[in-house]
């Protein structure tokens, strides 16, 4: 057990802190769910890329700097401590990229990863459908064999960033007769400006089009844009979902920064009745950090994250909600003010953060499903009869 960092790790952290201290925009960017805000966030991604900070953990040949998992975690801590913008590229760089590195052909990696790293291509996920949410394997969107590729038909929904993104990745049924139904699915990469694609933005709780429906009407996708083998899409997709629930999407840095800001908020708006909740938030953020370092150790040692990713997802998503609830309680009536209100505290960011946090227990597999996974795969309880 050694909880210290190497000199190289500390040096990397200091270098990142110094760069972020100078380069993080002084005024927050507009919401990335607005057209203008999306463009600002894309520019910020390019700024990160030019400085070598967009995808620190990737191999150098694709635009990264080959940082270790620990270094990446330290970078994330510095990134959020500096109050840097949300990552508009996150679906691509954190979720699709690990899958591309594991299942993609060399040609696919070379074609997609560098453009993703510099945000020339921003990616959206296309998993859920109107009749397939938690029960993803019930999806009906399908692909038919076509000259040199496939034609996609169907509808995807709740697709984050899709209103403004360039590409989407998702599952389509290529063998309607396959049993069980998890077989016969194929993982496709699709440009959102392809003929036959229609994107309909959907306003979220905050009123901005943070996600969209995507309609596919005979969209041609060449064989070269299938990720993994046809029919093997479920297995390939599960790699992404474990990244999403586990380490890469929500590293501890984000929650440590929120906890620190909550401490600061308490000092400005002290309410003795909430002191215990504030201390609990700080403790829980520390717990998530330490748990993640333990997980990182196992992953570096060759272990798989597996179903433990579900435990991760439950913890960070519910911690995020608790912290923001506590913040809004500290603010009392001002907690209900948006950034447009003259008396809003911190430009309404706690309310924005609360609304954002509330999505956490729903996306990436609802927490009800995660609790099933934990109970059945980590505790070994019997699967329910369906």
């Amino acid at each position, binding site marked *: *057990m050694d909880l210290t960092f190497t000199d190289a790790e500390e040096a990397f952290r200091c270098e990142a802190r110094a760069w972020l201290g100078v380069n993080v925009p002084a005024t927050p960017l507009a919401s990335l769910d607005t057209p203008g805000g999306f463009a600002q966030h894309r520019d910020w991604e390019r700024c990160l890329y030019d400085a070598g900070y967009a995808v620190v953990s990737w191999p150098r040949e694709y635009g990264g700097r080959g940082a270790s998992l620990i270094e990446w975690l330290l970078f994330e801590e510095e990134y959020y401590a500096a109050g840097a913008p949300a990552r508009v590229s996150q679906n691509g760089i954190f979720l699709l990229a690990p899958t591309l590195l594991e299942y993609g052909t060399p040609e696919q990696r070379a074609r997609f990863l560098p453009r993703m790293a510099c945000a020339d291509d921003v990616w959206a996920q296309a998993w859920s459908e109107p009749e397939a949410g938690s029960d993803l394997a019930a999806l009906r969107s399908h692909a038919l064999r076509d000259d040199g590729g496939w034609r996609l038909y169907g509808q995807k929904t709740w697709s984050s960033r899709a209103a403004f993104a360039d590409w989407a990745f998702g599952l389509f049924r290529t063998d309607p007769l396959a049993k069980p139904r998890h077989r016969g699915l194929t993982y496709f990469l699709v440009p959102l400006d392809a003929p036959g694609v229609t994107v309909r933005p959907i306003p979220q709780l905050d009123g901005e089009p943070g996600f969209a429906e995507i309609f596919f009407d005979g969209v041609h996708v060449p064989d070269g844009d299938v990720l993994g083998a046809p029919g093997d899409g479920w297995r390939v997709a599960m790699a992404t979902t474990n990244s999403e629930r586990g380490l890469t999407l929500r590293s501890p840095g984000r929650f440590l920064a929120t906890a620190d800001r909550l401490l600061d908020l308490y*000092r400005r708006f002290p309410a003795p009745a909430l002191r215990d909740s504030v201390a609990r938030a700080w403790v829980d953020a520390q*717990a998530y950090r330490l748990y993640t370092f333990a997980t990182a*150790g196992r992953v570096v040692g060759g272990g798989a994250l597996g179903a433990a990713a579900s435990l991760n997802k439950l913890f960070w998503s519910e911690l995020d909600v608790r912290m923001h609830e506590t913040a809004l309680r500290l603010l009392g009536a001002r907690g209900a003010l948006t950034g447009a209100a003259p008396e809003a505290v911190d430009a309404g960011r706690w309310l924005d953060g609360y609304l954002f946090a509330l999505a956490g227990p729903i996306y990436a597999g609802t927490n009800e499903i995660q*609790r099933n996974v934990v109970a059945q795969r980590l505790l*070994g*309880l019997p699967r329910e009869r369906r």
Partner: protein
Amino acid sequence: MRFGFSTEQRALAATVREVLAAHCPPKLVRAGTRRGELWGHLADLGLFGMLAGDLGLTELDAVLVLEELGRSAAPGPLLETAFVAPGLLAAVPSLAERWLAPLAAGKVAVSLCLRPDQYAVDADIADLCLIAVGDVLHLGTPLAAQPGVDGARRLFTLAVGPSVGCGAVAAACDRGALGTAAQLLGIATHLLEMTVSYVGGRRQFGRPVGQFQAVQHRLADVLMAIEFARPLVYRAAVSLSRRAGSASLDVSAAAASTIEAAELAARAALQLHGAVGYTAELDLHLWLRRVWSLRAAWGSPEWHRGRVADLLLL
């Protein structure tokens, strides 16, 4: 950064576990047999010397062993004697000379009352009772039995006797809180395992009750509470062993989270065992009682979070 234990540390804990499995059956806990043969077996293992810090062993080496002590629900003032008292005694030369050697050999039991709200465990069978008034340490004598919820942790008030020295009380309290947290990790894990096993076997409506989501989700929450308290305990052990400036903060973070995880585990275990869990015939209650008895023994979760808030300057 390597957040994990060495092979030696794990092997030591495994050995302790085997000895406890062999010599500390529920029957012994139920009888509340204190010291007796069990202490002899643990002494043969060198456990008292190890926990006292012989051979340069630290809190970090002790923490997995303490987890095993918790899991076994071993009766008697083991934590107080083996893990907390040595630091106190070492700070007072006259006590150190008289007591440290027999303590490390497992020959004596020590009962402690170091916090203002604390009861001394098994003071009636202890060879040495110590009571702190502020930072001043006094000899104590058992004053009155205060029967508690756990028959294997018998509680007493102490009368304050002559003072014997100063210092080390705060550090001893941190060790007590860490040791309690480690024990509760072991207890909570055991409660979860017992309950998972029970609901997997118990059938109602033609299926194991463990198949119902209401049951599964509750146990998933228990696992989450335990697994996110665990690294806090290990971190606190590292901090204490390094004499880090953050040690008290880390200990309180660990204690608050672990105590509540154990309470959650106890509550779920009782509820999911149903009526049979409410009987004294099933052994389950031995671990439930230990959770309830340890809850505030070295500071309640509320007290520890209050200290976290103090140290964070809230």
